[in-house]
C-alpha cells in the first residue's frame, strides 16, 4: 500500500498509516494522529488493551461495561487484535510495519526487541518507518526498568512537591494526567521525526524509496516536568526552593506575601488572585467598583490607586485586609454570576468548573467545539471534545467511534493482508488474534 500522502486532501495526515500498539500511556498519541486524518490501526492483545479496564464504566446495550476512558482516547482508530508472543502474530505485525509510516508503542523498554519486532528489526525492513516509544522514563538510564504508574511519574516530575498544603502530603491531580502529557509529547516527537522524513522525501534524499525514519524515545517523567512551569528557575537562578502553598500563590512579591487563589462561593469555588501588571490593575479596579456597587468595598481597596499598583511591594497585612472583604463578597455570588460579572467588567478570574459546567458553557457551544458521536452499543449519542484546533484549510476532529475488540480483524487481515476467513477463525481459536 503506497504511503505517500495524497495532495489536496482535507487532512494533514491523509494516507499516512499508523500502527498503534500503545497502552493507556500512549492512547491519546494515536488519537491525535488520527484526529489529523491518519489511518490509525489500534493493535491490542486478544484480551484487549488495559485502557478498556479503566473506570468509569457505563454498560452498553448488551450490558457489558464500556470504559469511558477508552472511548475518549481511542476514537478515530480501527482496531485489530494480535498476540505478539505467537510467531504468526509477529509475522503479521512485521508485514503491516513494512508499509506503515509510523508505529507507536508504550511497552517496557526492550520488550518489543525481545519479541523480534522492535525498531531495529522493523526499520531494517522499512527504513522510512518513524517508530515512537513512550515509556515512564525512557529507553535507558538508571530508572529505565522502574515500575511506574501516574503517581510515580508525577512524583519524579517534581510537580507533586508544588501541589497540596505546606508540610502536608504532596498531591497529584485526581484524574490521572501523565498519560495525556506523555501522549502529547509523543505526538510532538512523532511529527518532528515525520517532518524530517517528509522533507527528505521531497528532496529525493534517502535511498530508492526516499525519506528517512528514526526512533523517537519519549519519557513521561520528562513530559511532566513542564507542569513545574517556572518553579525550577527559583532554584536554578537563586537557590530558592519553590514549595507548595495549598490554595495560595507565592513568588510574586519581594515582601514574601502570598495570595489566596481559591475562594468558596454560593455554589462551589472561584479562582481569583490579586494580580499585578496592567491586567491585574484593571481587574482590581473593576472588582473594587463591583464591590462598591453593593457597598462591600473596604477603604483599603477604594483608596488604592490601582493604576500605580505594584504587586511586588504589597505587604501581607494589606493582602489579608483586602482578601477578608473579597472573601465575604464572593460568598454571595454563584459561579455563573462571577463569570458573567467578570466578563462584563473585563476582569481576570473564573469559576472552578467541573465537567457539567464545561458542557454547559456557551463559549464552547458557540464555537461548535463538541462533536456528537453515536458509539455503537451506547444507548444515546455522546458529545466528545472536537478538533484541538480550527484549521482554515484542513479538517481535524472526531470521525469514527472507538473500535470494539478486534472489530476490524476481517477488514484488515482478510481484505487487506489476504488471509482467508477460515484462517481468521483458526487464528481466533488459537488465540493468535
Amino acid at each position, binding site marked *: 500500500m503506497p504511503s505517500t*500522502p495524497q495532495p489536496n486532501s482535507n487532512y494533514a495526515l491523509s494516507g499516512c498509516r499508523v500502527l498503534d500498539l500503545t497502552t493507556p500511556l500512549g492512547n491519546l498519541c494515536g488519537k491525535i494522529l488520527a484526529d489529523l486524518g491518519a489511518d490509525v490501526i489500534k493493535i491490542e492483545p486478544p484480551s484487549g488493551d488495559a485502557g478498556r479496564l479503566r473506570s468509569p464504566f*457505563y454498560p452498553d446495550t448488551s450490558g457489558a461495561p464500556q470504559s469511558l476512558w477508552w472511548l475518549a482516547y481511542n476514537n478515530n482508530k480501527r482496531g485489530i487484535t494480535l498476540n505478539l508472543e505467537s510467531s504468526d502474530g509477529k509475522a503479521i505485525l512485521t508485514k503491516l510495519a513494512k508499509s506503515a509510516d509510523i508505529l507507536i508503542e508504550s511497552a517496557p523498554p526492550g520488550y518489543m526487541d525481545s519479541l523480534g519486532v522492535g525498531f531495529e528489526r522493523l526499520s531494517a525492513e522499512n527504513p522510512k518507518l518513524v517508530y515512537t516509544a513512550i515509556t515512564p522514563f525512557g529507553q535507558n538510564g538508571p530508572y529505565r526498568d522502574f515500575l511506574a504508574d501516574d503517581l510515580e511519574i508525577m512524583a519524579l516530575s517534581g510537580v507533586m512537591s508544588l501541589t497540596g498544603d505546606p*508540610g502536608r502530603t504532596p498531591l497529584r491531580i485526581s484524574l490521572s494526567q501523565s498519560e495525556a*502529557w506523555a501522549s502529547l509529547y509523543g505526538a510532538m516527537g512523532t511529527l518532528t521525526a515525520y517532518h524530517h522524513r517528509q522533507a527528505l522525501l521531497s528532496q529525493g534524499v534517502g535511498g530508492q524509496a526516499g525519506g*528517512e525514519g528514526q526512533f523517537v524515545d519519549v519519557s513521561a517523567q520528562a513530559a511532566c516536568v513542564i507542569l513545574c512551569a*517556572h518553579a525550577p528557575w*527559583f532554584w536554578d537562578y537563586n537557590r530558592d526552593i519553590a514549595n507548595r502553598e495549598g490554595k495560595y500563590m507565592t513568588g510574586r512579591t519581594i515582601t514574601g506575601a502570598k495570595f489566596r487563589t481559591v475562594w468558596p462561593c454560593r455554589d462551589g469555588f472561584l479562582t481569583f488572585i490579586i494580580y499585578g501588571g496592567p491586567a491585574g490593575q484593571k481587574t482590581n479596579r473593576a472588582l473594587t467598583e463591583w464591590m462598591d456597587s453593593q457597598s462591600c468595598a473596604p477603604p483599603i481597596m477604594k483608596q488604592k490607586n490601582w493604576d500605580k499598583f505594584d504587586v511586588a511591594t504589597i505587604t501581607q497585612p494589606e493582602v489579608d485586609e483586602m482578601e477578608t472583604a473579597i472573601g465575604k463578597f464572593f460568598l454571595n455570588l454563584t459561579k455563573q454570576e462571577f463569570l458573567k460579572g467578570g466578563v462584563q467588567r473585563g476582569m481576570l478570574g473564573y469559576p472552578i468548573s467541573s*465537567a457539567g459546567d464545561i458542557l454547559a458553557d456557551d463559549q464552547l457551544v458557540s464555537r461548535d467545539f463538541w462533536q456528537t458521536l453515536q458509539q455503537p452499543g451506547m444507548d444515546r449519542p455522546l458529545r466528545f471534545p472536537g478538533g484541538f484546533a*480550527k484549521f482554515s484549510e484542513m479538517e481535524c476532529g472526531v470521525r469514527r467511534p472507538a473500535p470494539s475488540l478486534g472489530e476490524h480483524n476481517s477488514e484488515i487481515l482478510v481484505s487487506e493482508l489476504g488471509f482467508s476467513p477460515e484462517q481468521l477463525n483458526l487464528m481466533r481459536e488459537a488465540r493468535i488474534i
Partner: protein
Amino acid sequence: MSQPALDGVVVVQFAAFAAGPCIGKYMANHGAYVVRVESASRPDGFRAHYPPFKDNVKGLNRSGVFAFNNDTTYSIGVNLKAPGGIEIAKKLAAKADVIIENFTPGTMRKLGLGYDALAALNPRLVMLSTCNMGQTGPRAQHPGFGSQLTSLSGFTNLAGEPGGEPVIVYGPYIDYVAVGFGYVAILAALEYRRQSGRGQYIDLAQYENGVHFLAPAILQHQLLGTSPERQGNRHDYAAPHNAYPCAEPDTWCAISVFDDDEWQRLVGVMGKPEWAASLRFATQLARKQNEAELDALVAEWTRAFPANELMMLLQKAGVHAAKVNNMPDLFADPQLVHRRFWRPVHHKEVGVHHAEMPAYDLSLTPAVEPFPDPCICEHTEAILQKLLGLSAAEIEALAAQGAVELESSVAAH
C-alpha cells in the same frame, strides 16, 4: 547524523508569556530559526513582572520564567506603533514559514497583520493564533491567564484532599497543554503545505485544549451524571497508593500497590510485620476499604527511610515507588541527567543556568544544543540582515525613525 529535523523552518513570533513563545522554543530546539518580535516600549510581561529574577534584581534580561520559555530563540526589536514598524513586521512575515501570535483576538488584524493581509504577501504562510477562548465566541474578548484558566477548564477542582477545598494547580497548566497542541498543529499544517503548496490559519483555544485532558470526565458527566472528585492521592482500586513521609523533613516517597502479588512483595520488604497479616489487608478490596488505616501503618514504616533509599529498595523488590522530587532534586535526578534533560547555557547577563529540553529524543536528528534566551532586541541587526538583506545604513535609518530597536539603545533596567 542528519540535519536538524526542523532545519530551514523560519518562525516569527508576535507573542508573550508562555502559550505562544514556548511553541517557538520547542521548534527552535529541533533546528527552526525562531525570531521573537518585541519592543522595549512594551516588554513581554514575563520579562517585566514575574519572579524569579536573577539575584532577585528585576531586569528585562534577568527573568527565569522568560528564560525557560525562550531558549534558543532570537530577538528583534520592532515597534509596531512607530512609523515603519508595521512595514518591517510585514516584510518579516513575508519571509516566514510560520507565524505564532497570542494577542487578544483581533489585535493583529487591527495592526494590519491579520492572516488575510499576511497570506496575500505570503500564500505559503502558516499562522497560528493561540489564546484563552479562541478567536470567536461570546467570551473571545474576556482577558485571562493560563494559571486561572486551569480552573475554568476543570483541573483545579481535581486537586486536593477528599472533602477539602481545592488547592492550586501550579503555574499556567493549561498554557502548556496548548503549547503541545499548538506545536502539533503547526507541524500538521507544514505537512499539508508540503503536499498542497498552501499555507493556512490555525485558531487554537487553550480552554478547548485543556478539555481534551479531561475527556473521560466529559463522558462521565453525560452518562453517569457524576464528576470525578478530589481524592488526594487515592486510586480507584490500588491500595496502598499515596505519598508517604520519609526520614528528612518534608521528604516523601510515592508507593502504589496494584495487586496481591505486589502487596506480598511490599510486605516482604517491610519485614512481614504482624499487622500486615491482618484480614483487614488480606485482599484487594479489604486493603482499599481499610485504606486510611493502611496509610497510617505504611507511613510509620516509611518514616525510617531516606526517600531515595526507599525508592531503590522497593523498586528492586518489584514495587511501584518513587521519591517526590523537589526542585533541587529535579536538577540532580539521575534519570533526567542521563537524558541530558537540563542543558547548561551561558547568558551574558545572568551567567550560567539551565535550559529544559523536549521530552522526546530523536535518534537521527537529535535536538540542537540550546543557547540562552535572548536579551531584549539583542539580534535586531543580525535578523534584518539575514532575513531582509538590509544594509547597515538601512538599519541605522530604521532605528533612527524608531521602527526598529537596537540592543545598544535599550535601557536594560
